């Protein structure tokens, strides 16, 4: 089975589909559309993620009572140090 698999043709077909400027333009069109979709998704994700971060921080500051210290409190754990340091930003973590 493995000996009979047409690796060369398979490789040529894959290459012709995915690389730029081959006779078959289908791959170029598909990648263009995929690129646009990913680009738009990145905008949506950026907006959603930042909104979560900002709302979580604002909620923490309000919950801490009073006003936040302009310029931030001294570094270290405290009411203005959210429990979501690092890439995870789920306020429920």
């Amino acid at each position, binding site marked *: 089975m493995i000996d009979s698999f047409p690796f060369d043709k398979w490789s040529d077909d894959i290459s012709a589909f995915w690389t730029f400027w081959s006779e078959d333009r289908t791959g170029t069109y598909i990648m263009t559309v995929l690129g646009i979709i990913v680009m738009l998704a990145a*905008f949506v994700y950026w907006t959603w993620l930042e909104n979560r971060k900002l709302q979580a921080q604002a909620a923490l500051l309000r919950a801490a009572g009073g006003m936040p210290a302009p310029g931030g409190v001294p570094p270290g754990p405290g009411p203005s140090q959210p429990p979501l340091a690092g890439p995870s930003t789920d306020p429920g973590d």
Partner: protein
Amino acid sequence: MTASLVGSMSWLLAQATEIEDKLSLDSQILAEQFYFFTVVVMWLIHVGFMSYEAGAARRKNIMSTAIKNILTIAVVTPTFYYFGWYIYGCFEHGGPAQGHAGPMPEFPGFCGATAPWADAMGPNLQDHISAVFFLAFLLFSWTTASILSGALIERVRLSAYLILGSLLGSGVWIMDAAWGWSAGGWLTTRFGFHDSIASAVVHGVAGAFTLGVLLNLGPRIGKYDLAGKARTFRAHNTHLTLMGLMLIFTGFYGFYAACLVIQSTITPGWLNIYLSPTTLGAIAFVITFGFAGGFTGGWIASRGDPFWTLSGGLAGVISVSAGADVYHPSLAYLLSITGGMFAVYVGNWIERTLRIDDAVGAVAVHGFCGFYGVFLVGIFAGGYPTGVNNVPVSFGGQLIGILTFIPLGFLPGYAGSWILKKLNLLRVPPEVELEGLDMAEFQQDFFPEFERVPETVVLPSGEEVESAPILLEGLAQVRNGHRAGVAVSEERRAP
């Protein structure tokens, strides 16, 4: 004998053809390298914008400011590739065209070469020019979006800036470039509009767009006192800001050079963006004298303020860019002095009279001086032939360009930011603004080894005081439903 002569002639003709082919290839490779290295130099503009804005921010907002400039590249690159370049290629006559022929028969169908799936928009052994030409324009687009960036710092959401920056960098400016910064653009071919190094096309339009956004964004909390007088937030590192400006200036030489078309086998070897002859030296003269005059004007008008002295240099260059291919160096020097001075006066007027908080003076430096530069060409270069049809420059033609570009820049900026504002996605929450954006966005202070000293603010009287009470009062105003940073008394007076 005859056969020998014919043979020799054939050999000579073959040699000539071969030499011609090699020269043509050599010329194309030279052009390819030229644009490639202008792109490398233009990267410095973005190093500069990042340093400039991060230095101008307060300590609590350093990284959130810098990351905007980095992510500008992340969003404007794909949006310009998928949409922006096509706009430039296909909207010369106002609306979209399909595979039209340009004004020069040797450049047919530029529109068809700008779609993201076009042969020219990827590896192509037959085309040495399209890719690097696209890249040069992409760097112009990053620059245009970055002009917006600095004005909004310390209160805009990163995601809001990225959306608005993409709209400006990949939509708005490239539309005006198609109209007035290409050989076939309707402003060029009908009115002889002349803006050779993009005074209004890049800077003016970006400034108008920025003004529209600032009106919706509002000032930073605490920017204005109860009487409506402007306070000044201290930049956390003015040295970094000045170094950033110097890097922008260095990158501008690449920007200027990339605005020319190189044709090494045709005299004089260089054309401006409208395909009129010029030289690289001509524009190098003007940019250098533009900096000299701009620094002088900024220094005089601001009475030696370091920020405005350097910003004056930028304003000076922008004021003479539109005529950089035709101005005498002395004229550039004189005009750029006025540009540097105007930037200071207009910047102060915007801040103090209009009460618009433009953190880096972008509307004055880029917006006002950009349109001022185009206006000056109408006066000092009137009659100069522009483009392949040699349409003479006229004051009226320049004015039509200005009147076209101001709304083209302003309205999308205002509308886009208005929509984001209504969705509550334009500005960070006021509590976060006071504490600093870096804590919310990155959960850290970016100078961990340095002791945190009390943040200060300069009052209209010139006295420097601790900012906390002022900012807390501003926060209380916002929580009571007043606009951020705007004096309550002023808000009551507003219609």
